[in-house]
Every structure is written in structure tokens, then in C-alpha cells.
């Protein structure tokens, strides 16, 4: 170990920390509605409104491969895939806005998005 090695370690770790803090900072917490957006090959394939009692299984079948996505408990989970590494299946369940599941071989991305809908609470005349 030399001095420059330590400097490199410190630089990389601080970039990682800065990146992590930035992502946390950018995380949208102001939402009253969650959507699960499914992208295939970079294009929006489908989008679902998430609720507590949602229970839906979506089968995505394209020439790239086959994924089964389950929407439940206000979140999403890829429960099966025909890709070789199965990283997307191992990733498990996501429910926070900004989180995503990615299946690289099949080019499938599931992203949770929080959105704020202007609800009219009260109207006065």
C-alpha cells in the first residue's frame, strides 16, 4: 500500500457516498399515488396504479424473453424470468418510488413512480 492507493480508496468511497446522498436527496417523498411502470426495450409497455389490495400477475412475452411480474401489497416483484442469471428475480419486492427492478437480458425494467395528484379536499363558494 502506498499513499496514492489510499487517496484512490478515499476518492472512490467519497464519490460513492456523494452519489448515495444525491439519490436520497432526489428521492421523491411528496406523493399520494404510486404507479408501477413497465418498460421493455426502453419503451413504456404498461403502467399500473398501485394500491394496497392490488393483486395482479402480468406476463410479458417478447422476442427477447419472458418475465412474470406480480403486483401486490402496493409494490412490484418479478417472480419469474427465463433469463440465465435471474438477478431480477433475486432482487425481490420493491415498493418505494425511485426503486427499480431490471432484467438486462430481456431488457425489462419495472420502475415505481410516485406522483402527486391534486385532489380537491374542499370547495368553498
Amino acid at each position, binding site marked *: *500500500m502506498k499513499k496514492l492507493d489510499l487517496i484512490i480508496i478515499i476518492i472512490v468511497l467519497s464519490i460513492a457516498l456523494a*452519489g448515495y446522498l444525491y439519490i436520497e436527496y432526489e428521492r421523491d417523498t411528496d406523493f399520494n399515488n404510486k404507479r408501477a411502470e413497465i*418498460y421493455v426495450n426502453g419503451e413504456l409497455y404498461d403502467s399500473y396504479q398501485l394500491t394496497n389490495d392490488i393483486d395482479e400477475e402480468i406476463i410479458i412475452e417478447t422476442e427477447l424473453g419472458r418475465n412474470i411480474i406480480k403486483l401486490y401489497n402496493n409494490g412490484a416483484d418479478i417472480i419469474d424470468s427465463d433469463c*440465465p*442469471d435471474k438477478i431480477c428475480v433475486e432482487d425481490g419486492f420493491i415498493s418505494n418510488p425511485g426503486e*427499480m427492478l*431490471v432484467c438486462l437480458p430481456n431488457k425489462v425494467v419495472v420502475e415505481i413512480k410516485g406522483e402527486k395528484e391534486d385532489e380537491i379536499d374542499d370547495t368553498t363558494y
Partner: protein
Amino acid sequence: MSRTKKIVIIALLVAQALVLYLVERMIPFNFGIPGAKLGLANIITLVSLFIFGFKETFMVVVLRVLMSNLMGGSISSLLFSLSGGLLSFFIMYLLKRIGKDKISIIGISIVGAVFHNIGQILMAAFVIHNLKIVVYLPVLLISGVATGFFVGITVSYILKILKNTGLFKINY
């Protein structure tokens, strides 16, 4: 070093890299981080970098990536291994030339591991047309520092032994 000796040693290094690749696939290491790997094959790239120059190591990297994908991969995983492997090799080569005495194998190895992850993430973002995948980068940087550190230590032991055999001129 004679041409024949060079060819034989390149072949040996590629074979060893393939064995390491297969062993690594059996080790379930990812700590829940998608894409995190031990990066054992980088041991061979580093050794090659210290006993050969640019051209030979480039060959070792390309052959290793092509053959390991034949053994268990797909076209898309070939893209990822190639982008990660080559980017990390170029950066390690530059760092070794510029850094000379100021940097040890551990530092070079860490930078190599980190850029391997960066190369793969960029390729992944390109493939799925979604730049948001860089949210994985912070954790991958940390795992790169950890794995790169231990790979670096391993390589420094290997080079010490190789130096004692007197078969190679190792500038370390």
C-alpha cells in the same frame, strides 16, 4: 521473450482466467447487489499487465472474455463483459504507466474493479435505454473497492512468486 514462449504464456493465462471465471460462478457472492462480482479474472489481467505490455494483455483480455462467454453466456452478456473488461484494462494500463512508483498493485486493482463496474453500468444503461440504472453505481463502487483490494493483494503475492522463479522480467 521469444515468440513461442509468449504464445504459450498467453494461452496459459487465458486458461487460468477461464478456470477462475468458472470457480467464481460457483461462489454465490452478491450481497443482494445486482451485478456485484468478485472479479477474480482481473487477477490474470493484472499479472499479464506486469509480465507483458499493452498488446499481449489486450489479447489476454479479449480472448478471456470471448471464451468465457462461449462457456456460459449470451450475446448480451458478451457486450457487458467486453465493455467492462476493456474499459478496466485501458484504465489500469494508463494508471500503471502514469503512476509508476507512486501507486501499488492494490490501487491499480481497485481502479480496475471500479471501472469494470462503470463500464458495465454504462453498457446496461445503453442496452435498456434508461440512464436511471446508475442508481446502482454507489453500491457497485463500494463493492469494487472491497473486491479490488483483495484481488490486488492476491496479485502482489503471485508476482512475488513469479519474480523468484526468474522466468519473467517483472517491473514491480
